[in-house]
């Protein structure tokens, strides 16, 4: 397409879309206005009917849990697609060991980086676990905690190098975590139907308000999301690095790769 035609198309699209966009922006509630009715209603009823303090978790894993099921499989599909795309050229065979392209410079990392990563890595993992487990009490939940856990595994890469990272993180475990998390979410959505209740109806004991073990079924669904997100994001990192390291020869044992 020639440049003038592109600009003409842009102007045309702008003319079509601008009135609608303008109308939507004009219809938005003003900045700083009070929260919407739906939010007020949720705030009012959730502590009584679900015994949880974090309304966002209550919506994500219970009241609108069906939406989260869709998002869960959206994430699964996106990561599966990326993995298929990146593995396409080298096929199913994912190397079990770290590979290094011959001739690539091995950049030594300073002791300070190794020390900081060894201190920060476990602390980050601990914080991720905390965010996952306290989904119904404090802000956060399976997704946020899962991403923090995946970041913690990346700190291993920064501190120990690619070979050390691949020794710690197993690709098959990540596959199992990602698929297993989504499966856990779906199965425990279906489980209430065995008792005659509706899909994803919260049939487990709800626990006490502001206790870690409150929310009943939400805790299980939250765990499923955390597993899937941790596995999925780490798998994504691994596939990206594996792709950029399509190598001919394996790493020398004991040699640190950058």
């Amino acid at each position, binding site marked *: 397409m020639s440049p003038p035609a592109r600009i003409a198309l842009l102007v045309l699209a702008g003319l079509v879309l601008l009135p609608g966009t303008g109308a939507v922006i004009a219809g938005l509630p003003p900045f700083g206005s009070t929260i919407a009715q739906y939010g007020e209603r949720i705030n009012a009823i959730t502590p009584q009917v679900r015994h949880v303090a974090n309304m966002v978790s209550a919506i994500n894993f219970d009241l609108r849990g069906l939406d989260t099921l869709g998002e869960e499989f959206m994430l699964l599909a996106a990561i599966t697609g990326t993995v298929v795309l990146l593995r396409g050229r080298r096929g199913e065979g994912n190397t079990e060991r770290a590979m290094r392209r011959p001739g690539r410079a091995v950049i030594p990392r300073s002791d300070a980086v190794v020390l900081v990563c060894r201190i920060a890595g476990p602390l980050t993992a601990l914080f991720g676990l905390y965010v996952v487990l306290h989904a119904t009490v404090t802000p956060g939940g399976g997704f*946020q905690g899962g991403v923090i856990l995946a970041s913690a595994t990346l700190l291993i890469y920064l501190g120990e190098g690619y070979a050390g990272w691949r020794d710690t993180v197993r690709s098959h475990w990540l596959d199992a975590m990602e698929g297993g998390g989504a499966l856990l979410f779906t199965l425990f959505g279906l489980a209430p139907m065995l008792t005659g209740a509706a899909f994803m109806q919260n049939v487990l004991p709800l626990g006490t308000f502001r206790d870690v073990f409150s929310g009943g079924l939400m805790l299980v669904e939250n765990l499923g999301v955390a597993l899937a997100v941790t596995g999925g994001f780490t798998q994504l990192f691994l596939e990206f*690095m594996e792709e950029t390291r399509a190598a001919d020869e394996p790493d020398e044992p004991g040699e640190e790769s950058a």
Partner: protein
Amino acid sequence: MTLILPLLFLLTAVSGTAVVLVRDPARQIFAIAVNGLVLAILFDALQAPDVALSELAVGAAAVPLLFLVALMAVRTRPPEEKS
């Protein structure tokens, strides 16, 4: 509170513009991480701690780290040779 919000909006605009204006990819990654951090603080100031936590984990940690790793891995020449 009246001063914090306009300041944060200004910082968001400045750091977002910086991501575009910085041309060196390695520095750009740090610019995008700073932008993510500013957005996380802004979301927290607007009383959305859940979104802030997501933004902090994805925007300020996961995405820059992924970019950094990809950039490090595609550079096959030793650092002293690059222009």
